[in-house]
């Protein structure tokens, strides 16, 4: 498992951890039942605060990606594809909102915008 922490970015460190673990789950690198390092061990290895790793794990737990058992540690939850897709929808929505805002401010119509998406989608 690799986690890369950037101290310069605008993204809070706990969010960097949660999004990277989620990505690993979606890519299938982490599977249901896999053990995660303890919050304290992860904090030590990344040289960050325990509060940061705790917050990351709490958010992952809240969103159903992992479950934590007292005294045994944290484990990846069995993949819930619906939930993963939901998560991706949210991400895409976020990115597209930006595009729509830009389109509106420059007078580009919804049809034109759809054409752009169509084009980009097929290009790839």
């Amino acid at each position, binding site marked *: 498992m690799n986690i890369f922490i950037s101290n310069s970015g605008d993204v*809070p460190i*706990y969010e960097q951890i949660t999004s990277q673990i989620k990505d690993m789950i979606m890519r299938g690198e982490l599977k249901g039942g896999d053990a995660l390092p303890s919050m304290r061990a992860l904090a030590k290895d990344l040289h*960050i*605060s*325990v*509060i940061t790793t705790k*917050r990351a794990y709490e958010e992952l737990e809240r969103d159903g990606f992992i479950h934590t058992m007292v005294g045994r540690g944290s484990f990846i939850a069995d993949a819930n594809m619906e939930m993963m897709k939901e998560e991706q929808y949210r991400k895409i929505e976020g990115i597209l909102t930006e595009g729509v805002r830009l389109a509106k401010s420059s007078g580009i119509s919804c049809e034109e915008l759809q054409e752009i998406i169509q084009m980009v989608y097929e290009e790839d």
Partner: protein
Amino acid sequence: MEYLIEVENLNKTYPGFSLKNVNFKVPGGCIMGLVGENGAGKSTTIKAIVDLIHTDSGNIRVLGKDIRKKGKEIREDIGVVLDGASFHEILRAKEIGKFMGKIYRNWDEKYYQRLLKTFTVPGNKPIKEFSTGMRMKLMIVAAMAHHPKLLILDEATSGLDPVVRDEILDMFQEFIQDEAHSVLISSHITSDLEKVADYITFIHKGEIFLSEEKDRIMEEYGIVRCRPEDLASIAPDMIVGVSRGAYSCDVLVNQRERVKQQYPDMMINRIKLEDVLLFKVKGDK
């Protein structure tokens, strides 16, 4: 939450300096940094916590007990490294182990040897031949080898190179792998604490002006760079400090997101821990 150190309304007056109503708590399982400029009161606070000085008033509880009454008992469970304190120059690490074994009931010679090895402190060399970093590592190892629950260190990383400082931070994080353990470390090198500390307590002129989770400080504080005439438009309750330059005006705010929403055109940057200190000290002058 269980607190390993509780300082309540601590007051101590010296000619020309006083600690004024110092209040803060160190929870279990964390590293707390006590940050302030030289002469701010860090060492005095630490000395009061370990009962090395008389205080004028206030309550101090260490590991849940009053240190002035149960000092002997508590000292078995804490490890302390004070600024400038050192073992005698002619001693070797292995000899220090011998006499520390007579001082502490729980001295663990095997663990001591292992720590010396892990942190590459030579056992057989007199301290006078040690580098500054090695001396400090020895002090910390010696403070840890009786399995304390709490480490209290005054300026343990100042004067050391980044490599040794990093090793020492490792030691602290290793120490708090046990959730019942905590570290209180005073420092004016805030970049070290920026990495590993869980809580930061700022002290200035003998007064605590902020004691908070580090993540929260780093996330919520920000520096707005604006024209001096824009200053009046920022809500005063968000302003922590102001620094006026020749071409622009820097404002330390404690609600970065709110400022971003209200003034999308203003330039707002993330902070470093030392900014909080700099704004406070400069704003005071």
